[in-house]
């Protein structure tokens, strides 16, 4: 939770955005984030983000589902309440496969989506500052964090030189807060 000052630059083409990101990173300004209306491939590398580990989490959830299903069914049919189904073995592994598979998928999917929401800090009722209402429409928006070491005008001029179609300075909450989207606040007021 921190209210910060940002210099904001909007680009109307991802082809202009990439060199701009490169220039900003070389310049040493503190790049807060880039917002795009759709996934732009290569932008994560350009920003220096490392590959997400979400799929590893998915694998772990999946394995948890597999062992839950197998362990649970085996325990029930061999020790908790063994039932004789037409003389077949109590531990009938082939018959356990369908449910084991389904639970693997279920655990992996549910776990991954929850992890995805947690990592991205998204949930119903969560509010975040939107730097430009068209950042989910057709603009590629870059926000640079301002502090006492840099001059506002200098950053804005620099951003204009990278091909931004629109630039401005905003004071806003940098993290999420609980809020309603029909209220105008740029940070938590309460």
């Amino acid at each position, binding site marked *: 939770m921190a209210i910060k000052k940002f210099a904001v630059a909007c680009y109307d083409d991802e*082809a202009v955005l990439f060199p701009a990101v490169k220039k900003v990173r070389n310049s040493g300004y503190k790049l807060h*984030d*880039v*917002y*795009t*209306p*759709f*996934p*732009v491939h290569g*932008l*994560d590398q350009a*920003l220096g*983000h490392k*590959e*997400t580990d*979400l799929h590893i989490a*998915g694998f772990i959830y999946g394995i948890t589902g597999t062992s839950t299903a197998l362990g*649970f*069914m085996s325990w*029930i*049919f061999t020790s*908790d*309440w063994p*039932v004789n*189904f037409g003389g077949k073995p109590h531990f009938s592994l082939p*018959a*356990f496969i*369908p*449910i084991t*598979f*389904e*639970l693997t*998928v*279920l655990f*992996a*999917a*549910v776990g*991954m*989506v929850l992890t*995805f*929401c947690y990592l*991205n*800090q*998204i*949930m*119903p*009722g*969560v509010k*975040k500052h*939107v730097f430009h*209402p*068209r*950042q*989910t*429409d*057709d603009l590629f928006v870059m926000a640079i964090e301002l502090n006492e070491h840099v001059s506002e005008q200098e950053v804005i001029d620099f951003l204009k030189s990278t091909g931004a179609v629109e630039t401005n300075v905003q004071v806003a909450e940098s993290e*999420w807060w609980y809020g*309603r*989207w*029909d209220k105008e606040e740029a940070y938590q007021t309460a």
Partner: protein
Amino acid sequence: MHLKYESFVREPLVNGDKTYHQVTEDIVRPIEQKPGRMWYAGFIFSVILLCFGVFSVFWEVYWGIGVWGINRTVGWGWDITNFVWWVGIGHAGTLISAILLLFRQGWRTGVNRAAEAMTIFAVMCAGQFPIFHMGRVWDAFYVLPYPNTRGPLWPNFNSALLWDVFAISTYFTVSLLFWYSGLIPDFATVRDRAKTKFRKMMYGIASFGWTGSAKNWQRHEALSLVLAGLSTPLVLSVHTIVSFDFATSVIPGWHTTIFPPYFVAGAIFSGFAMVQTLLILCRRIMRLEDYITIGHIEAMNKVIVLTGSIVGVAYLTELFIAWYSQVIYEQDAFNWRIVGPYWWSYWAMMTCNVVSPQLFWFKKLRRNIVFTFIMSIVVNIGMWFERFVIIVTSLYRDYLPGSWTYYSPTWPEIGFYLGTFGLFFTCFFLFAKYFPVIAIAEIKFVLKTSGENYKKKMEPIEEESTEEFIQKHVDAHH
């Protein structure tokens, strides 16, 4: 300059002179406008059907399962037929959203959202049938393995019917998650351009506070890919397990190993037909012809003719094996299917599923919207008859001639079926009004490679020789 390249042989996925902003405008427009008269008429009609369905189900629950036409010989009638039919319809949505994603089929972007919605609503309809077929529906939760005070007494994990419980509920959950995770960014788009306070609030909640941050998109891409990877075997497993309901029994006509692939092919076949029915109407009413193009319709017709042919081969294989096996029970079962008292259902199935889809080998017919629309309904009628043939014509003459019977549905069974149509279309009409019917972000993602106007811009490059091209762009990456 942009050097995303796609061959000119491929037709554009988005027609017209579109910019990113125009894509948003076109797809969000129906949400921001008052719905037309067609929408109200359709919606009210669906709700009436739904109410009739609720009444039919109430009648069955109040008086008991005896009000249906099923009896001791034909224990599964319209209820399980409709269950299998609806589940099958759902499969096309997952095929489009998951399998075609893994195969990198760009055309899925135009149709995946609506197809996935169809999946979810179809599975909701399907689930009703086995639940109310239980009779004492208030005990339906007994199928869940929860620690109870009766022992605890567990359900039989070796039973194909219990596998079904897990398969259908997992399928529903995973489809819903996959669909909704794709919707989050698009809801944010609707939210950020909302003019009214109420809309802004509602889509603010629905969008989970999505802002389109680069890191969030990176995770979103990873999530979509893994969910697609999970859904692909899942969708194949679901109809496989549904077919196990039959194949693991010892009823002539059911006890065959061909059932899983045969059911999966049939499911995709009927599902694509339903996607065609819905999207041909949607693109017309919501003026989305630029996004759901003739090319999309043709691509889906190709899937229909392929899966229809697979289904046809499966029917013939069944007949061959019945003869080749030299088992008189198998032979009689298939003989009676063809010439017995239910001959009309067998021949309706054969005509609608095997013969008529072959017309889609003609390119002219694949690209004809009226013909496609009629065929989509014919296919779904045929696939309903397939399930009816498999279920009823395997049961009505069992091992004991004294218990042979003829089964016809009663009005609560028919009403139940009509009611699920009501449920399906009520949901679909609400979806069409309040949800972005086409995945906005995904269309923007493919726009610069597959949009008509962007492809046109590539024409001069297309005409250059390779040497000229290299000369011009040799320094581009330095």
